[in-house]
């Protein structure tokens, strides 16, 4: 399947998502999150051939980590803030992560 066709489909769903976000400003979802929900719904309903999307989604998601590297570099602007509060941030991150893991594990007991 053609990756370009798949990419076009992703952009179509992104555009639909942006439209929905504008029509429903009360729901706190961005255009791309709406697009994600709409794509999931279309695939579940069988309205869209999965192979069409896969041809673009697979290579696009392969590089997912790369796309937010520039945002991470922006941390430079917060160097002083982070330096000043480093112990609090480190402790909150560590404890918060362990608590989140245990809370999620507890939640999976729901039968």
């Amino acid at each position, binding site marked *: 399947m053609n990756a370009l066709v798949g990419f076009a489909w992703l952009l179509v769903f992104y555009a639909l998502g942006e439209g929905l976000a504008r029509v429903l400003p009360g729901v706190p979802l961005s255009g791309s999150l709406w697009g*994600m929900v709409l794509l999931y719904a279309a695939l579940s309903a069988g309205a869209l051939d999965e192979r069409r999307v896969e041809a673009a989604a697979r290579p696009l998601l392969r590089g997912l980590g790369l796309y*937010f590297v520039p945002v991470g*570099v922006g941390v430079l602007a917060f160097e002083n803030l982070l330096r000043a509060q480093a112990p*609090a941030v480190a*402790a909150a991150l560590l404890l*918060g*992560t362990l608590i989140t893991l245990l809370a999620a594990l507890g*939640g999976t007991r729901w039968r």
Partner: protein
Amino acid sequence: MALIATVLVYLAAERVYRVRPHPLLNPVGLAVLALVAGVKLGGYGLERYQNETLPLVWLLKPAVVALGWTAWRERSRLAGRLRPFLGGLFAGSLASLTLTPLLARALGAGPELQKALALKSVTSAVTVDLAPRLGVNAELAVPLIILAGILGAALGPWLLDRAGAADPLARGTALGTASHGIGTARAAEEGPLALAASGLAMAAAGLVTALLAPPVFFLLGLS
């Protein structure tokens, strides 16, 4: 220049991780560190660097849409086990969103950091998109998210062993809910069911947090 440099540094970081796949050598973390050093020492200017790399960041939009495909594909592998998955997803997301900022507050961190830390378990892809709506600084949140992912991937399996979690669905759900993509890469080592649960949890946690964050921030006095 900045765009090419970012791609090349990231590819090099990926190669390092492939040779030595340890959570601490996470490619995104390594690439950010190297580029921060480069921008700072090279005197390139952060604003110029960010302007030139904007096209890369824009790709997050279709990539988040593509997560709907991931979710759909993994969902079929979770057939009949939706309840434990959803239970873990909601409990984990809510715990992260409320308890992390409260912990940070108790430790003396200011509101800007509390809000950024509240999103620590949301995949960076979604956070970049979500942050402006929530009054969160994405540049502050993303490095914290990467660190939370590294911590979860490094310590998660150990903690889950100690808690007596043997079920791959429970382990995958916990890793994906707490540590997004980095946790999911770790879950992949535990088998296909853990990977499916983790991948789906990563996409769904972004959605759940987007919906829950506005009321939670309001209740915590952070909005």
